[in-house]
């Protein structure tokens, strides 16, 4: 295979990964890493390329989401303290943990992501009492609905903050955006409306990934020949996905995506155990 073919192949895979990632709010990273590993790229390089592409996806899609008025900048900023600290920890751990163990962890995280996006838990909000801490931190806000603005209250801030540290940790450890875990923390723990959770999560992913990207760069995990097609592919794919997202049936999409993730998770775990990396 020559450079031209390699670049085209990686670019096409990245395009698909970015598209799926944006549609589901889970990010392209969870798809592109197993895909590159499948192509025979060392996982450390795959993580570096994925992490940079995650910044592009997040910033590119956030540009449109922010305009829609769904994402909450205060929630994002506050929780980014936790995610960036976690990202530093994770990126450092990624440097000292053997690649095979990383692969197994990656597979398991994928399985959990698939599970999280498959199940739909009952949620109730809107009628609840405000949480004093959330009020103090000015996290409560409103999001646009056809009839106007729907106010919401944020709950269980310390739990959400801790989960965000863990999400940041996973992002740095595996070179992914860890959107599923950020959404879990906001949607389930803090009871933030789903649309606000996914868009704010997307918004935070770029800052989180930038924190670990510095560490990855220093350790030489970011290779230009690989990261170029990955980043451009994922970016274009995610922009296409973001356009389709508006008004799409997210529940159905998440279910379709879960199946893809499941297959990739098993591949990563298998590779980790057999050592074929």
């Amino acid at each position: 295979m020559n450079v031209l073919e390699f670049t085209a192949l990686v670019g096409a895979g990245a395009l698909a990964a970015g598209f799926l990632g944006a549609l589901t709010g889970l990010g392209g990273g969870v798809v592109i890493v197993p895909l590159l590993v499948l192509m025979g790229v060392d996982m450390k390089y795959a993580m570096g390329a994925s992490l940079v592409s995650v910044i592009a996806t997040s910033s590119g899609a956030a540009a449109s989401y922010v305009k829609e008025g769904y994402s909450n900048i205060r929630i994002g900023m506050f929780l980014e303290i936790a995610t960036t600290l976690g990202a530093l920890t994770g990126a450092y751990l990624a440097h000292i943990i053997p690649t095979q163990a990383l692969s197994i962890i990656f597979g398991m995280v994928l399985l959990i992501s698939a599970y999280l996006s498959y199940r739909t838990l009952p949620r109730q909000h809107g009628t609840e009492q405000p949480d004093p801490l959330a009020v103090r931190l000015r996290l409560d806000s409103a999001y646009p609905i056809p009839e106007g603005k729907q106010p919401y209250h944020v709950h269980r801030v310390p739990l959400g903050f801790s989960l965000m540290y863990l999400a940041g940790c996973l992002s740095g450890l595996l070179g992914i955006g860890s959107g599923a875990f950020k959404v879990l923390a906001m949607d389930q723990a803090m009871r933030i409306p789903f649309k606000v959770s996914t868009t704010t999560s997307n918004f935070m992913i770029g800052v989180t990934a930038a924190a670990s990207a510095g560490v990855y760069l220093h350790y030489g995990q970011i290779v230009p020949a690989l990261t170029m097609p990955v980043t451009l592919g994922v970016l274009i794919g995610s922009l296409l996905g973001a356009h389709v997202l508006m008004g799409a049936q997210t529940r159905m999409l998440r279910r379709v995506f879960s199946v893809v993730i499941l297959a990739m998770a098993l591949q990563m775990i298998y590779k980790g155990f057999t050592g074929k990396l």
Partner: protein
Amino acid sequence: MSEPSRYSGPSDERVERIISGLLRIGVITSALIVFSGGLLYLLHDGRQPAPNLGQFKPEQLRSPAHIWGEAVALQPLGLIMFGLLLLIATPVVRVIFSVVAFALQRDYLYVLFTLLVLAILLYSLFSGYLTGRGAAEAMFFPPWPLVWC
């Protein structure tokens, strides 16, 4: 969104619009640079055998100074890396802007939060080169990193 009137300065909606624009400019600029570098790379080395990435060996082109030097010399891989660095810097610029925006709104609690995030980001990006050690290991996580994660 509708904050009490004791907050002056630009409204949240206006700040969000500006942030949205910043992100878009950052991503487009860096993508164009990465694309140009990639085009040069393919023109120069397109027929060469694909890089062997099966075994991890740290990339040598990684310090900002080295990348800048290669980029101004119009070396294809240097240009790509420069574009990628700009991309990594985009969220940092966003955070810097947020500090200013919250300060204009006199929302000092969030100025503090945002400065904290900015400090962590700058620490990640630069501490490794200042100390010659990995960013995170330099001072943040001495021997107890496993307790942290």
